[in-house]
């Protein structure tokens, strides 16, 4: 990272390095952000620091769905309006946000915090799968919807969980994999097309 050591101030290069470690932040952007913070008012810098500390100290994992939350169980798990018979399993907390924005799902969630990735040595024990199994003791649960990412690791996770849950008499389904809305059949790849055919339904 030679190009990062240009700033002559050590605190500044330390900040740039910390920012650069964050996902999606390249060396240029890290530099821009660092110089922005340097020029920002003390109040603004303080409030950012406090927000970071608060995230580390106050955010907990919900004991039910394992999502990040202020309380445990989280507001969503406590909400009586949510359908308790449905659990939607996702890889990351951000996936819950995406599904909530759609407004299409009325059940509850389960966040695995990752996916099975054999090449990285990440197995089922590294995910919140045991916690998901524990939730199956709740008689009300009837269906688990796997909403892991449609890539190899996501599908490995989904197939593995399905294998664990099926013997328990729970219905396991997964999100349909197919053509994106607004996409074009002509440009779809073979895997997507074959999946879209498998997951077709009658009109």
């Amino acid at each position, binding site marked *: 990272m030679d190009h990062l050591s240009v700033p002559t101030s050590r605190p500044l290069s330390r900040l740039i390095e910390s920012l650069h470690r964050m996902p999606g932040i390249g060396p240029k952007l890290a530099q821009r952000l660092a110089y922005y913070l340097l020029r920002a008012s003390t109040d603004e810098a303080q409030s950012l620091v406090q927000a970071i500390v608060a995230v580390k100290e106050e955010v907990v994992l919900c004991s039910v769905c394992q999502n990040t939350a202020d309380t445990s169980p989280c507001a969503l798990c406590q909400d009586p309006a949510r359908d308790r018979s449905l659990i939607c399993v996702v890889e990351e907390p951000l996936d819950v946000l995406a599904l909530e924005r759609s407004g299409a799902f009325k059940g509850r969630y389960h966040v695995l915090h990752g996916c099975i990735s054999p090449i990285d040595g990440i197995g089922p024990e590294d995910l919140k799968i045991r916690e998901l199994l524990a939730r199956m003791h709740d008689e009300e649960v009837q269906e688990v919807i796997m909403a892991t990412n449609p890539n*190899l690791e996501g599908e490995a996770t989904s197939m593995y969980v399905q294998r664990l849950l099926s013997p328990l008499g729970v219905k396991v389904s997964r999100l349909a994999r197919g053509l*994106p809305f607004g996409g074009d059949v002509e440009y779809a790849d073979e895997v997507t097309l*074959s999946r879209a055919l498998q997951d077709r339904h009658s009109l």
Partner: protein
Amino acid sequence: MSRPRVYKTEAVVLGGTRLGEADRLVTLYTQRRGKVRAVVRGALRPRSRLGGHIQPLTHCHLMLAVGKGLDVVTGCQILNPSIPLREDLVYQARGFYLMELIDNFCPEGLENRALFSLLVDTLEHLCLSEGGERVLRRFEVRLLDITGFRPELHRCLGCHQALEPVTNYLSLSAGGLLCPPCAPEQPPVHSLSVNAVKVLRLLQEADMETVNRLKLAPGLAAELEAALKGYIQFVLERRIKSGVWLERLRRELGPNGSLGGPQNGR
């Protein structure tokens, strides 16, 4: 000699990670330039044309632009989507294992056409319904061959005598077999039965069709697997992590090794 700014090549996608907001950094094994790391811009956006094409285990025809740092994928046509490897846990685990082996054995930018055709051939055969393990054993043996780690299986590496049809010893450090009198002096070794040595010799020479007709008793299959695994681990000085996953799945799913096969009935 100036390199062209755009090139076309066949490739197998070995893996990929997220890069920035919506790009993917993919590792490819290409026919023309060996292992290459390249960027697929916007791959993670749902409407990306390339994102769906460039998934691990896919054999495709690619167009790449030479970038300042990494090459950029600009076009893709799928030759084999390896669909059966996506529909079953064990099939998929074999695919992961294959990708990880190639990634670990190959340095970036070193062309090896023999290895490329072996990879494509192996991928194709792993998609067929039976014999995935045999296909992997042949791949391991041929991979060792092509990358210069072919174990000597005909003469003892200690005394240089032809080997007797008795239990001999595969020496990892010597790179081949040792006869019983020579063996104990040079650990680490794996004992290898007469049949195991025969099969290994066959795997060094045989084409896929012959391998497909091969019937291996479970004990012999396990012996071969352990010996090759140990040998490869010694060569690479590391463990192949997806091999652990594959082993675990086979153990948990029973000898049949499949959840009833791929869903599309193939």
